């Protein structure tokens, strides 16, 4: 008996030792001979990988067969992370250009690091005294420009641009990290100075500008939900060398500036290098959830607008949500592609939206490539509000989310003693475009999307488009002004997700549809990854993506995760993506959607990665910042993965 027990004990110890070794040993350390990439260096010099926002790399060294061997090549911490009321939100995409990786941080610094080691070449600080004026400490990286014909011996022929949340754009020499004094005033452009109407707050330059030839195209982020009239949305064309203002595009008609504001472009902007058209995704006007004071037509809001990148002149526009009262900004740079359809090649763009639609438009004319229907939608029952009678609907490509709100989760309902179903029964819920109401409405989708600000990625050789999408209903409640004043006084924001919409007839409350334990009240999945063939408009596959992690516990993979950030695609047939609530980054087989590799990073990598090749070696780099909307885990990690030598 004793001998048997000893054997059992030894066997258990062996199993434990094996598991421990598996747990602690870096994944797949087998050395493999690597295929040399065709090019010695493949750049990633724009937020979307290129100005067409395709998020595509021609790199082929990392393949579906060898990706399991991918391991951390280097990792650095910028030191720019904080929590609490000074929480940082870092959704930056690293850029690789000029044989250097460039990135901005949410505490207004730019870093230049060596692409193969992560060793810091230089840092630039845009003044630590800057204070977050409206949306806290946020950054989505930097932009890069270089002169077409560099003048020898002169500095600032290659520049990096860093925005701050108080409206400053800093022009930095890409080689030295010093300010380019010929740019703006001593190297800084004060963009706030150009915006004088209804200036309620300083604008935030979260998103780096797009670059076309020698022009920077710059939008900005605002402080939504708190005012009826606010800074009106503008987009600027700026001389990349001097910082001089070339043009301004005003999104809101001048005669309506007394009743609304914002509708700004806070997301990425894409540019067609062949035609010089810039494509602007515009956001929702203020007040975001009540439109009774802004009933006149505003054709450029919640729209995709094509302007000439060198002049700002509008070429075409298409409104994608009429009379937006859900704050469903058009929130990602359109992805440009050439569609092969019916024997023709159509210059097109894909505009993904928070509503879960993929609008495919001719990028020269704005006309739909796949049909857009105007479908009747529910009317508002709020005094003063007149919701649009119809809204655009796209059946092909299939929407990224269903038309109706997911059913109540039995698990969440039972564990909360029926709280979820009782709550839902009290709310207005008529599916997509259910207007906000005084009794409360389920917004499906809500302001979190659908598709978030990263948009999708495209393989232009096959026109395969991959996009991550959220399934997250939220509860919208309008609070009549008298009641709002009684409960919240003059506060612009308050408990229970309250925002004042000051100056309008209603305040607003946004609540997450969660039970008393914080469990989602709706059936999973909470997020999926989808692949489409854009030549036919057909869905290739859809899979739950990511995992929810709560208190460290991973929920089932079939539940998926809400995601913020975006995928990228490589020519070898891989999709790389962070984005999910768990602190993992993944490689996915483009053909099947199966996860082929995953690695843990310091926090959710709620951004889009960059793929580059340097000295013949391919790297995949992630900014790992976290986002308080998803989980409290934040970080300042910049990490790159590569195949072992």
């Amino acid at each position, binding site marked *: 008996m004793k001998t048997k027990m000893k054997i059992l004990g030894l066997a258990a110890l062996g*199993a434990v030792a094996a598991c*421990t070794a598996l747990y602690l040993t870096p994944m797949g350390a087998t050395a493999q001979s690597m295929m040399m990439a065709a090019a010695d260096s493949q750049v990633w010099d724009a937020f979307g990988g290129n100005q067409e926002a395709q998020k595509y790399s021609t790199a082929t060294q990392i393949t579906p067969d060898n990706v399991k061997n991918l391991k951390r090549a280097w990792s650095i911490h910028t030191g720019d992370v904080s929590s609490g009321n000074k929480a940082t939100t870092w959704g930056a995409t690293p850029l690789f250009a000029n044989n250097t990786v460039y990135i901005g941080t949410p505490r207004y610094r730019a870093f230049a690091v060596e692409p193969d080691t992560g060793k810091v070449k230089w840092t630039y600080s845009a003044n630590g005294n800057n204070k977050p004026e409206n949306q806290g400490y946020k950054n989505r990286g930097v932009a890069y420009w270089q002169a077409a014909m560099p003048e020898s011996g002169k500095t600032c022929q290659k520049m990096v641009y860093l925005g701050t949340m108080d409206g400053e754009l800093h022009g930095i020499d890409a080689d030295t990290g010093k300010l380019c004094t010929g740019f703006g005033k001593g190297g800084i452009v004060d963009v706030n100075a150009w915006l004088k109407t209804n200036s309620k707050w300083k604008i935030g330059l979260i998103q780096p500008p797009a670059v076309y030839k020698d022009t920077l195209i710059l939008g900005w982020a605002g402080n939504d939900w708190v005012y009826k009239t606010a800074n009106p949305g503008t987009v600027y064309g700026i001389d990349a060398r001097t910082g001089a203002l070339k043009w301004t595009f005003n999104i809101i008609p001048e005669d309506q500036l007394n009743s609304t504001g914002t509708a700004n472009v806070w997301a990425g902007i894409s540019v067609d290098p062949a035609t010089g058209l810039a494509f602007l995704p515009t956001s929702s006007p203020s007040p975001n959830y009540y439109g009774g004071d802004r009933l006149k037509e505003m054709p450029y809001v919640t729209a995709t607008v094509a302007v000439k990148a060198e002049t700002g002149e509008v070429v075409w526009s298409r409104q994608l949500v009429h009379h937006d009262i859900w704050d469903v900004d058009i929130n990602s740079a359109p992805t440009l592609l050439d569609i092969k359809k019916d024997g023709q090649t159509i210059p097109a763009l894909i505009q993904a939206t928070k509503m879960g639609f993929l609008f495919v438009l001719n990028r020269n004319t704005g006309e739909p490539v796949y049909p857009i229907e105007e479908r009747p939608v529910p009317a508002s029952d709020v005094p003063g509000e007149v919701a649009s009678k119809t809204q655009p609907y796209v059946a092909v490509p299939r929407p990224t989310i269903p038309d109706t709100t997911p059913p109540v989760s039995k698990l969440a309902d039972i564990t909360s003693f029926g709280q979820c179903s009782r709550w839902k029964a009290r709310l207005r819920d008529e599916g997509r475009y259910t207007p906000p109401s005084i009794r409360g409405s389920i917004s499906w989708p809500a302001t979190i999307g659908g598709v978030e600000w990263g948009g999708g990625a495209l393989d232009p050789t096959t026109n395969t488009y991959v996009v991550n999408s959220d399934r997250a209903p939220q509860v919208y409640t309008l609070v009549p002004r008298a009641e709002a004043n009684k409960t919240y006084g003059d506060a612009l924001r308050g408990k229970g997700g309250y925002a004042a919409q000051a100056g309008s007839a209603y305040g607003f409350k946004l609540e997450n549809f969660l039970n008393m334990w914080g469990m989602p009240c709706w059936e999973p999945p909470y997020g999926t990854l989808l692949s489409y063939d854009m030549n036919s408009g057909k869905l290739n596959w859809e899979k739950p993506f990511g995992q929810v992690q709560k208190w*460290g516990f991973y929920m089932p993979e079939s539940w998926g995760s809400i995601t913020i950030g975006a995928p990228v695609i490589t020519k070898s047939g891989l999709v790389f993506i962070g984005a999910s609530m768990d602190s993992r980054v993944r490689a996915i087989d483009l053909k099947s959607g199966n996860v082929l590799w995953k690695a843990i990073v310091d926090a959710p990598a709620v951004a889009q990665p960059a793929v580059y090749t340097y000295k013949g070696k391919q790297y995949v780099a992630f900014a790992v910042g976290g986002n308080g909307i998803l989980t409290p885990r934040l970080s300042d990690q910049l990490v790159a993965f590569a195949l072992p030598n």
Partner: protein
Amino acid sequence: MTQRHTTRGAWLIILGSVMAGAISVYDFFTPETGLIGTGGVELTGIAAGLMFLAALTMALKPVRGSFLQGFLVIAVLLDIIGSSVAGYFLESPVIMAAQALALIGWLMNVIGDAADRSVETDEVEDED
């Protein structure tokens, strides 16, 4: 009623609890685990500590009352089950392996104790 109980398996339970405790501490403080600062590993760490104390009592205090014996046996089993489930959802193979080890120890202890009781009963019957 106070009786002498076997100490067999107790040291395996102690080993399992030490492993689970150590990996919980490691996970709690290490970003690369994906579990840094999480309540889940706090829970498994506390559970490992309780299991350690219970197993230490089993090992060092073989003469104990039947109530204490029953409490220890049930508490350790519940601890193993709970920690295993936690380890599964934390996706921590080490925590699960530690629980496997503890379970073997627990089985050795329970079976050993039953065997001893059986031998004692036989001896009593022989005397009759």
